[in-house]
């Protein structure tokens, strides 16, 4: 039997970064907000306390903070002609589950996306001509400019305690920051972290070669910090247990220590954990949502929660799944290229990195933070970088981080070393401290065939169709990686290592090894219902009292990590709901 609950102003599906920001902003504005989180309650103490949190096997290998694929997963194939099979275990990406979502176990890299990203189609058409964009690459501009979003980027950086160095404050270039960044109103709230030895080597080598190195912005607090809401962050201790772990020092900008406690202090806010939303309920016109249906997975009881506004704030993949299960918008069909929901899925091609081995240098890879690093943007944010030379759209950053030296996952050995036995042991013992990596992180342009729809065969534990992902790396990605990887290799050679491995070639996408949790698109934003599922306020064109937050809204993926604009857009949408939609519900313009 389904229990129908009392109507609220807003129901939020998923309480991570975007749900947390919306929960805080809207409940503080006096709206009655209920957040439904499918996972459990959790907090720094005792859930992320040492020594137990420093358990590589449990958290980094067995993925105990993540979505459990036994309940719900997706199916995957490279192209529409192949059978799709379930992703039975997590691998390539790690959606979160539980209070704080993936905002608990992220690394903290917090970019503002480039001016080119905000105007993806216009930039390429103007500079290279319309024919430079392949006909099967449906890129489009964001529906808001970088300048419009700048105050919201700033707000998110302040909330999350981002450490970094500005490169451009209101048009004036700043020494030591990113030479290519868009103008900012002010510097980051915290100075950059102390660089590792590997980062210093990379910084000096790239500067020597005429590139523009700078510290990568990251939500690992370089010192103790109190954010504008009064949330207190500790200083990062470079422990090397960031990604896939919760931070015991509260030094990683995370929703469970910032926006969520602020929402929970509001009498008009209520959190329900273990509450799995299976559907957004629409009225008979299919133009209005009347609430959501959910199951309490700790009791099996089913509920309906009526609400004036439904905000989908689940992981980017799950937002799209819920839209398709609920019949919000027209599903995309890659064959006919009709419909919208599910199109423009993008990811993050890697594989262009190099590992350098030195006889006489010690890197101590375990002295690490999730996000600190030195990057160069000469082949990405740089709008003077000639894409015609690469014959591809997009670009890649080249960077040296040092996110962990945890030994199950990190054991570099030179090319040709066996994977086991006496020679492997000897090499592992010798090179563990003496290797460093130079990474290449590439953008990913959409392709008509890279998309989601519902799987015809496989079901989740609620008997609903799994989401089906059709995806592969394509020609454009291979060109970008091929071009920028050679630049990374040149930088590496200038450091004169004893040997180096890589760069590799980008092959077919493989869903098994971890690459990044940067899944974007599927419920994209744009300028009209013809090219997008959402308008500029992340409001559904088809069902205007449904908002869909998160990276599912991005029409393409940048070479930058997604969380910066994910957070900024959550503040942007919260503002639009408070100042516009609340007074005049309906499609906002």
């Amino acid at each position: 039997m389904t229990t129908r609950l009392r109507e609220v102003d807003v129901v939020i599906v998923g309480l991570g970064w975007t749900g947390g920001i919306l929960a805080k902003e809207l409940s503080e504005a006096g709206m009655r907000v209920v957040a439904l989180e499918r996972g459990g309650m959790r907090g720094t103490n005792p859930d992320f306390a040492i020594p137990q949190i420093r358990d590589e096997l449990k958290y980094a290998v067995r993925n105990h903070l993540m979505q459990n694929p036994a309940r719900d997963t997706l199916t995957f194939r490279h192209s529409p002609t192949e059978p799709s099979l379930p992703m039975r275990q997590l691998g390539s990406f790690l959606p979160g589950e539980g209070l704080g979502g993936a905002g608990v176990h992220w690394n903290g890299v917090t970019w503002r996306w480039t001016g080119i990203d905000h105007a993806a189609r216009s930039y390429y058409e103007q500079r290279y001509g319309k024919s430079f964009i392949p006909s099967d690459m449906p890129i489009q501009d964001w529906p808001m400019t970088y300048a419009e979003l700048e105050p919201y980027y700033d707000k998110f950086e302040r909330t999350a305690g981002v450490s970094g160095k500005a490169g451009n404050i209101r048009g004036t270039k700043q020494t030591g920051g990113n030479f290519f960044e868009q103008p900012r109103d002010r510097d980051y709230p915290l100075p950059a972290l102390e660089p590792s030895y590997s980062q210093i080597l990379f910084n000096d080598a790239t500067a020597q070669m005429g590139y523009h190195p700078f510290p990568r912005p990251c939500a690992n607090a370089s010192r103790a910090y109190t954010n504008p809401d009064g949330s207190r962050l500790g200083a990062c201790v470079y422990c090397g247990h960031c990604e896939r772990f919760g931070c015991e020092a509260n030094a990683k900008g995370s929703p469970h220590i910032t926006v969520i406690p602020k929402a929970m202090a509001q009498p008009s806010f209520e959190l329900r954990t273990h509450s799995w939303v299976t559907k957004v309920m629409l009225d008979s016109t299919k133009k209005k949502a009347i609430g959501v249906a959910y199951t309490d997975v700790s009791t099996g009881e089913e509920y309906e929660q009526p609400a004036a506004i439904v905000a989908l704030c689940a992981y980017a993949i799950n937002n799209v799944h819920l839209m398709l299960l609920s019949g919000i918008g027209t599903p995309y069909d890659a064959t006919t290229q009709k419909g919208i929901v599910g199109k423009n899925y993008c990811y993050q091609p890697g594989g262009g990195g190099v590992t350098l081995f030195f006889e006489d240098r010690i890197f101590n890879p375990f002295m690490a933070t999730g996000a600190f690093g030195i990057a160069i943007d000469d082949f990405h944010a740089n709008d003077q970088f000639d894409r015609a030379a690469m014959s591809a759209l997009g670009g890649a950053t080249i960077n040296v981080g040092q996110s962990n030296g945890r030994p199950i996952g990190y054991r570099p050995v030179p090319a040709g070393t066996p994977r086991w036995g006496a020679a492997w042991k000897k090499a592992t013992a010798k090179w563990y401290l003496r290797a460093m990596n130079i990474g290449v992180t590439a953008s990913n342009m959409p392709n008509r065939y890279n998309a989601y729809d519902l799987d015809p065969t496989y079901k989740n534990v609620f008997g609903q169709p799994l989401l089906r992902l059709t995806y592969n790396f394509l020609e454009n990605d291979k060109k970008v990686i091929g071009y920028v990887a050679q630049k990374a290799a040149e930088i590496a050679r200038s450091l004169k290592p004893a040997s180096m491995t890589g760069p590799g070639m980008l092959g077919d996408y493989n869903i098994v090894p971890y690459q990044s949790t940067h899944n974007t698109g599927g419920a994209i934003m744009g300028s009209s219902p013809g090219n997008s599922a959402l308008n500029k306020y992340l409001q559904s064109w088809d069902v205007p009292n449904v908002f869909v937050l998160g990276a599912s809204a991005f029409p393409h993926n940048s070479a930058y990590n997604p969380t910066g604009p994910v957070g900024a857009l959550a503040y942007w949408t919260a503002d639009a709901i408070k100042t516009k939609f609340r007074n005049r519900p309906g499609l906002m313009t």
Partner: protein
Amino acid sequence: MKNKNRRDFLKTVGTVGATGIAAAVGGDTSVAGQSPAGSPAGRVLLDPAGGPVSHAYTFLTAPEAAFIEAAVDRFIPADDLTPGGTDCGVAVFIDRQLAGAWGSGDRTYMQGPWQKGVPTQGYQSPLTPAEFFRAGIAATNAYCRKTLQKDFDRLTVEQQNKVLQDMEQGRVTFEGTVPAQEFFNLLLGTAMQGFFADPIYGGNRDKAAWKMIGFPGVIAIYSEHIKTYRNKKYDVEPKSILDLS
């Protein structure tokens, strides 16, 4: 008994289950921990609590345990860097993992229908990891009996290395449901987890793997060291969760 392997010893004693035997053997690691084919004699190891090392198994049968011990000793041979895989607790680690949640298919989508798929689609077996291991061990032994007339653990070290290399390179095909290369990768991956994970899980005894590479463990407060240890070795006795619990 010094020159006999685990299986011979078990045969001598009788057909009692592996767990009971191993418990009865207790700290006699010169028997229980010894590699079958003449690698250095097992040394007496103490577990961190000071007691003798146990080789008790809960999931693996005696022949399966003999297989796993031989395999992990080939992956991690005893040398001046560390004791062999078995003496480092890697076989015990694998046994506990297979007996526990992971072995039972925790956090794995187990619904059908079942199709082979391509490697880039990942694990598609209808077997749980524990069942997959069991079938893989049986298939490897069947292959060894067919081609070399002995179970894997009774082969010479050179023969064992050759069989493992052939599995790794995809040069052999097993009869039955378990692909040789896929089993090899799971076996090696799980052994490496055991060698390098925190000793709370039974492997990495005495933090041997961490000492081998210079990983300092879980204390990890490097706010100052990030500057003072640039290009400088950080030599400390590693600390594990087990040490701090």
